[in-house]
C-alpha cells in the first residue's frame, strides 16, 4: 500500500481556473497525505467546488500542477478512475431502478468492488434496498450517492458538500459513515461550508476565500494561531459600550482597573471561536464589514 510511487494522495501546486472574467481558483497549493481526512472550507463561490471538480478529472484547469493518486486527473485512465470515489453536491436523478439493482450494477464497473450488500448497510439503506430510487427521500438519495461513491473501494474519496440539505440527524449519521471509511484507511477530501462539520471530521483543513487558501492547518491549531487576540469589552461611565481587540487582554484589564479604580462595569473578555476565526478569514465577519 505504501510503495505506490507517490508521497501525497493529492498534490496541487499553483492551481488556477478562470470562467470568463471570473477567477474561480487563483493559485491554490494543496498537499493531502494518504489516509488523511482533509476539509476545504469556505463560503459559496470561494472556489471549493471548482477545485474538487479538477481533482475529479471533470474540469480542465488553466494553470498549475495537479497529481491525484500519482496521476494527472486531466488524463485519468479507467484504472485511475476505479481508485477515486466521487460524491457530488447534488444527487443525480431518481431512476426506475431499485437501490439494490443500482448499487449492484455500479459494482460491475470496478475491478475490485466492495460487496454491494455491505455498502448498502454502510449507508443505512438496508430497509430501502428494494425501493425504487424515485421513491427515496432527498437524504436517502444522497446516501445512495455516497454508496455509489464508495462501491468501487476507492483509495481516495472526493465529497463536494456532501451534507447540504441534510437534517441534523442525517448529518450525524453521515459523519459516522465518513469516520468509518477513514478508519479503513480511505483518504477523504471534502468541501463544506459548515464549520461544525469540518471540526467534527477533518484532520486538517484549508480555508478558501476568493480562490485562495487563506489559512491551513489542524482545526485546533488554526484557532490558536488566528484566535490569540481576545476581545475586552466594558461600559463607560456615560453608559456607552466599548470594546478593544488585543493580544494582551490581562494588561488591558489592568489598565482599565486603574482607570476605573476598582470594578470595571460590564467587563467581558472573550476568545474567538473557530467560527469567528473562519468568518474573519473569509471576510464575512460583521466586525470587518463595518
Amino acid at each position, binding site marked *: *500500500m505504501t510503495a505506490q510511487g507517490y508521497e501525497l494522495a493529492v498534490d496541487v501546486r499553483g492551481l488556477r481556473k478562470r*470562467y470568463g472574467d471570473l477567477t474561480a481558483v487563483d493559485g491554490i497549493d494543496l498537499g493531502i497525505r494518504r489516509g488523511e481526512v482533509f476539509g476545504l472550507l469556505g463560503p459559496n463561490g470561494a472556489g471549493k467546488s471548482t477545485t474538487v471538480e479538477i481533482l*475529479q478529472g*471533470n*474540469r480542465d484547469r488553466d494553470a498549475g500542477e495537479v497529481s491525484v493518486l500519482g496521476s494527472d486527473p486531466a488524463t485519468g485512465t*479507467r*484504472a485511475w*478512475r*476505479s481508485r*477515486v470515489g*466521487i460524491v*457530488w453536491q*447534488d*444527487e*443525480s*436523478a431518481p*431512476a*426506475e*431502478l431499485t437501490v439494490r*439493482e443500482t448499487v449492484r*450494477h*455500479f*459494482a*460491475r*464497473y*470496478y*475491478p*475490485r*468492488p*466492495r*460487496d454491494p450488500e*455491505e*455498502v448498502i448497510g454502510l449507508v443505512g439503506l438496508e430497509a430501502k434496498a428494494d425501493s*425504487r430510487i424515485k421513491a427515496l427521500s432527498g437524504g436517502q438519495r444522497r446516501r445512495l*450517492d455516497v454508496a*455509489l461513491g464508495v462501491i*468501487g*473501494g476507492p483509495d481516495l474519496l472526493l465529497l463536494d458538500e456532501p451534507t447540504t440539505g441534510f437534517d441534523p440527524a442525517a448529518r450525524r449519521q453521515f459523519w459516522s459513515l465518513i469516520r468509518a*471509511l477513514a*478508519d*479503513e*484507511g*480511505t483518504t477523504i477530501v471534502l468541501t463544506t461550508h459548515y464549520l461544525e462539520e469540518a471540526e467534527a471530521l477533518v484532520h486538517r483543513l484549508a480555508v478558501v476565500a476568493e480562490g485562495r487558501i487563506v489559512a491551513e492547518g489542524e482545526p485546533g491549531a488554526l484557532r490558536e494561531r488566528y484566535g490569540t487576540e481576545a476581545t475586552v469589552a466594558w461600559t463607560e461611565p456615560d453608559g456607552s459600550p466599548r470594546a478593544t481587540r488585543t493580544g494582551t487582554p490581562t494588561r488591558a484589564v489592568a489598565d482599565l482597573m486603574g482607570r476605573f479604580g476598582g470594578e470595571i462595569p460590564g467587563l467581558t473578555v472573550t476568545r474567538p471561536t473557530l467560527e469567528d476565526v473562519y468568518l474573519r478569514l473569509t471576510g464575512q465577519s460583521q466586525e470587518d464589514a463595518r
Partner: protein
Amino acid sequence: MTTTPVRERGAVGVGRLPGAWGLGLRRGALEIRQFFRQRDQVVFTFAFPVVFLFLFASIFRDDVEGAGITASQLYVPAMMAAGIMSTSFQALGISIAIEREDKVLRRLRGTPMPPAAYFLGKIWLVLFTGLLETAVLLLVGTTCYGVGLPSDAGRWFDLAWVFVLGITACALLGIAISSVPNSANSASSVVVLPFLVLQFISGVYIAIGTIPDWMLNIGALFPLKWMCQGLRGVFLPESAQVLEQAGSWESGRVALVLGAWCVGGLALCLLTFRWKDRRTG
C-alpha cells in the same frame, strides 16, 4: 475499532477492469428494464406509429395506378421505417438530453465505465424496442391492410439488414443530436422538428410521386428515405417499383447509404458527445 483495510474487506471481483462489450450487455439489460418500468412511455412509444398507420392507411385506401397496390399497402413499410426512427432517433435524442440534465451521465463519467459501454447499452435498448415496434406494425399491416409477410428467405434477409443498419444509424444520430439542446425542456422540440420534416420529405406521410424532386434530394441525404425504400422492397410486389424515383428498390444503394450513416453517426457521436450540460460546463 477494527481497522481492516478496504481492499481485504468485502472486496469481490477479479481485479481486472471489466470490458466494454460485457458492460454494454449489462447496461442494455438495465436500460430495457428501466424502459419497461415507465408505463406511459412504453404505451406512447409503441402506440404513436400504430395510430399514424391506422389514420393514414384508413384515409388513403385507393389503388395506386399502374403499381398493383393500394395506398394502404404503401403506408405499412413507411410507418415501419418511421417507427424504427422514432424508437431510436427520437427516443434517444430526448432521453439522453434528460439524462444529461439529471446528472446521470456525470455520475457514469465518474466511474471507470468505458464510454462505449454506455453507447452499446443504448443500441441494445433500441434494437429491442425497435424490434417490438416493427413486430406490432407488421401484425397490424398484415391483418388490416393487405400486406403479406416477406415472401422468401431473401426478403426476410433484406428486412433484417435494413432494420439493423437503419436502427443503428438512427440511434447514433439520436445520440449525437442529444448534445444539441441546451436543456431537457427544449430537447423534444429540437429532436421532433427534424424528424417530422424528414418524415414529410422521405415519403413516409406523402407518396414519393407527389414530393418535389429537390425535397426528395434533401431527404435522400438522410437515412429515413432509404429505410422506407428498403422496406418497400421487402413488402411490396415487384410491380410497385415504378413508383420509385429511380424506378427500382436500389437495395445496393440503400445498404451503402445506411452503412455510411452508421460510420458517420459513430464519428459524430465520438466527436460531439457531451457528458455534462452546458450550464455546468
